[in-house]
């Protein structure tokens, strides 16, 4: 309930079936509000089956301030298909708007229109979507843009940015289609402003907010941003195999990398993909692949070779529901263990996890630096939610320009006696790549001596294993420690989270702070190896320490518990949708109010619930 505040933004859901054009309408909305200067987050849901039966929803949240999550609830439902939209009304917040076709399709079973579900406290507006579309374009296809017009007119957002957005969106179409769509928008706009009796509280007054930005704002998905991070980092070889939700990275790079002078190969499987990337990385170029859990499973052996032979390579894993083929189109953060521990032998390697779309760009870029500087494979963990959500981002080029802080140790010349795996303080040895005169050497997955030749000697194995672990220690020492955000001093609640869940955890923390709790959080981006100090420091001043993540029972929580030496509250849940801020806040506040008021006990309770398999976290069993 936010009924007494002037609107600073809203959550809009455009619901329809395949062919209704709701996804396109959402994209127009994204572009338009971004042009106005709003911050945007968009996260659509598609039907699971290829043939596209079933519901799809374009979900856009825009706000004056930076947006961390797609938002709980919904302020405006645009119903392009009555049947699918009915269940959507459950999400509507008090005071929400519903825009629907005032002439419900006559084939409707029992004549059930979404209008019948607009209960008191909501505001329904019937708009002749089909009729106005036909008027504008001689067809009903443009009713999605009629609806956008109606929405814009109703909440008084300026029309020009929409018109531009439509022209941009349909730039490759004929002028007739393009202008027909603009006309459809205009008819909707006029209908709303001239015919509808406004009863809701959403009035943006036709004014665009003024937001400070670095650089040009762009609308990007996490996958697009990751691909851009690769390009900005100077990627020259990308090898990939299609898999949801990572395919888009391959598709974007297939288009863009050749133009940047690099090569892309779609391989026969994921083993071959990472093998190609390892080959290219070993040969001295920046190389990468991207996949999802099932594909990462297949890459385990090659990743391990890259650790042993000290080959820089970047592997992006966009996580989805698991285990096994799991839920390909649902989000989850359950590949942490595989990423950090999925290797035979002692095989340390860094894992990075971006929190938002901009970080998909930045951390992918940084991954190449870390890979080169520490001569190691680097994993970047996205997930379905992060890969597919769309945000307005700006300053990517500026950010990229600031990178490059980790130097490489390249061996440039030498006469015999070259020791490719020379033992050094930080474990990093000067590296020569093929083509260099006189620095010939073998690389191998066998344990080897400093020159790279196989050695089965015990003490050598210890020295080399120590060297590989020392590199990780050096990285953990050089990577900036995550700073605690939130309250200072003793805390009611300390919150740890990672990856795409950081956004919701941040919003939840703010909500709790607003309710008077002393809350602070530590949100590592280098999630493996663990930088232990900040976690311990947070733990020491927290009455309850919670770890928030999207998996069964808390994969990262296991690490945190070990590091801080106490039981933590596990707010861990799986399911179809990303975990929301309200849900997290509720779980946290529930824990805080726990009777007995003992940290250990609280944690134990959550822990026990989890162990009994009633679902991670406390109130999150379903």
């Amino acid at each position, binding site marked *: 309930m936010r009924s007494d505040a002037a609107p600073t933004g809203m959550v809009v859901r455009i619901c329809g079936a395949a062919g209704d054009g709701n996804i396109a309408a959402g994209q127009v909305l994204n572009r338009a509000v971004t042009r106005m200067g709003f911050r945007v987050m968009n996260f659509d849901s598609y039907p699971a089956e290829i043939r596209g039966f079933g519901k799809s929803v374009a979900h856009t949240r825009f706000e004056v301030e930076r947006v961390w999550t797609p938002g709980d609830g919904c302020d405006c439902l645009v119903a392009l298909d009555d049947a699918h939209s009915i269940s959507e009304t459950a999400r509507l917040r008090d005071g929400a708007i519903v825009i629907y076709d005032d002439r419900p399709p006559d084939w409707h079973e029992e004549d059930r229109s979404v209008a019948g579900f607009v209960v008191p406290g909501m505001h329904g507006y019937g708009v002749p979507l089909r009729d106005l579309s036909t008027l504008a374009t001689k067809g009903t296809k443009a009713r999605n843009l009629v609806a956008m017009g109606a929405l814009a007119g109703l909440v008084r957002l300026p029309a020009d940015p929409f018109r531009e957005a439509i022209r941009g969106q349909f730039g490759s179409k004929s002028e007739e289609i393009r202008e027909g769509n603009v006309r459809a928008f205009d008819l909707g706009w006029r209908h709303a402003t001239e015919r509808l009796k406004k009863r809701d509280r959403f009035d943006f007054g036709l004014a665009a907010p003024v937001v400070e930005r670095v650089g040009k704002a762009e609308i990007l998905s996490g996958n697009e941003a990751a691909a851009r991070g690769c390009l900005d980092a100077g990627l020259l*070889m990308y090898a990939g195999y299609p898999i949801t939700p990572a395919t888009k990275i391959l598709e974007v790079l297939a288009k863009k990398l050749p133009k940047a002078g690099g090569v892309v190969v779609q391989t026969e499987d994921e083993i*071959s993909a990472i*093998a*190609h990337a*390892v*080959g290219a990385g070993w040969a001295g170029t920046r190389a990468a692949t991207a996949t999802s859990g099932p594909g990462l499973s297949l890459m385990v052996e090659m990743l391990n*070779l890259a650790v042993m032979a000290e080959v820089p390579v970047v592997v992006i894993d966009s996580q989805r529901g698991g285990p096994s083929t799991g839920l390909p189109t649902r989000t989850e953060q359950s590949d942490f263990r595989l990423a950090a521990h999925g290797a035979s032998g002692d095989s340390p390697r860094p894992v990075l996890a971006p929190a938002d779309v901009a970080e998909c760009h930045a951390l992918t870029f940084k991954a190449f630096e870390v890979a080169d500087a520490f001569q190691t494979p680097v994993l970047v963990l996205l997930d379905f939610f992060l890969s597919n959500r769309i945000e307005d981002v700006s300053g990517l080029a500026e950010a990229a320009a600031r990178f490059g802080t980790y130097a490489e140790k390249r061996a440039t010349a030498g006469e015999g006696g070259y020791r490719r795996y020379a033992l050094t303080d930080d474990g990093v040895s000067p590296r020569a790549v*093929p*083509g260099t005169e006189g620095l010939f050497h073998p690389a191998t997955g066998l344990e080897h001596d400093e020159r790279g*030749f196989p050695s089965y000697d015990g003490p050598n194995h210890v020295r080399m294993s120590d060297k590989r672990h020392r590199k990780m220690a050096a990285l953990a020492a050089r990577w900036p420690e995550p700073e605690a955000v939130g309250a200072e001093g003793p805390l009611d609640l300390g919150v740890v989270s990672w990856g795409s869940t950081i956004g919701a955890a941040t919003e939840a923390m703010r909500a709790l702070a607003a309710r008077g709790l002393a809350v602070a959080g530590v949100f590592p981006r280098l999630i493996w190896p663990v930088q232990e100090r900040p976690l311990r420091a947070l733990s020491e001043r927290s009455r309850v320490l919670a770890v928030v993540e999207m998996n069964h029972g808390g994969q990262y929580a296991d690490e945190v518990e070990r590091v801080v030496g106490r039981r933590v509250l596990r707010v861990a849940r799986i399911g179809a949708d990303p975990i929301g801020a309200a849900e997290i806040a509720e779980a946290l506040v529930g824990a805080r109010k726990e009777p007995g008021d003992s940290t250990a006990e609280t944690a134990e309770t959550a822990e026990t619930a989890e162990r009994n398999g009633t679902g991670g976290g406390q109130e999150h069993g379903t």
Partner: protein
Amino acid sequence: MGLEEGQVLDSEVGLEVDEVVGSGILDYRSEALPTWCPGCGYYGITMGITRALNALAIENRNLVVVTGIGCAGRYPFFVRGYGFHCVHGRALPVACGIKMARPELTVVAIGGDGDGLAIGGGHLPHVARRNVDVTYVLFDNAIYGLTKGQASPTTPEGQVTATTPYGTPDAPLNPTLLALAHGASFVARGWAGDFRGGEDLMRRALAHKGFSFLHFVSPCVTFDKVNLTWDRVRADWHAMPEHHDPHDLAGAMALAIDPVRYHGVFREEPRPVWGA
């Protein structure tokens, strides 16, 4: 046609010392001595490869040898140049990644029959159809050498091995035929005893633009006492019929399944090269 007198050589030890030292082929040898068993056919194949590298004056700094795991897989430790001893079965995709990233390098991939046709068998068709400009040399001893004598994809039906005490139940694959069927643009067959012939095939393979597949048959003197013995291998091999046209795929496939085991170039066909 049989072999000429003096053409057969079990290992390089048979070469005149002058010939070895004066030839420059030692420039392609690393400081490490090969660890293969005395009498292993791999010495002969190595001699052919080394002479071809020398003859073409491939610069050591631009030479990359990539292998999987196995006795054959040990190759990178014995070569003067850059070597990558990868994991079992992945020589080809790693080699392709290297070549795609650094086209100026000469990339030779080497693998045993287990490495290349069993665990790595899924990669060959795709490298062949992509026509990536790497040379792949299959060291086919019809046995798993390094793991001590188990059946491989080319072990003949019925042969007793460590894992097939009652005789291998499976029909063997025909590597030459496979490469042809996958569309490889250069396919040849040679054997360990004829290092001059091996040198010639290797020169043509290296010179070929696009993917070249070299199938070398080689005795494992330690773990195969019945099938690819030196005597049997020598007796089994025949020169390619003069009339064979290496552009004729159907003809090449027919020759490849002929019970007479021909050696020479089965196919040499210009095709667009990946990335070129």
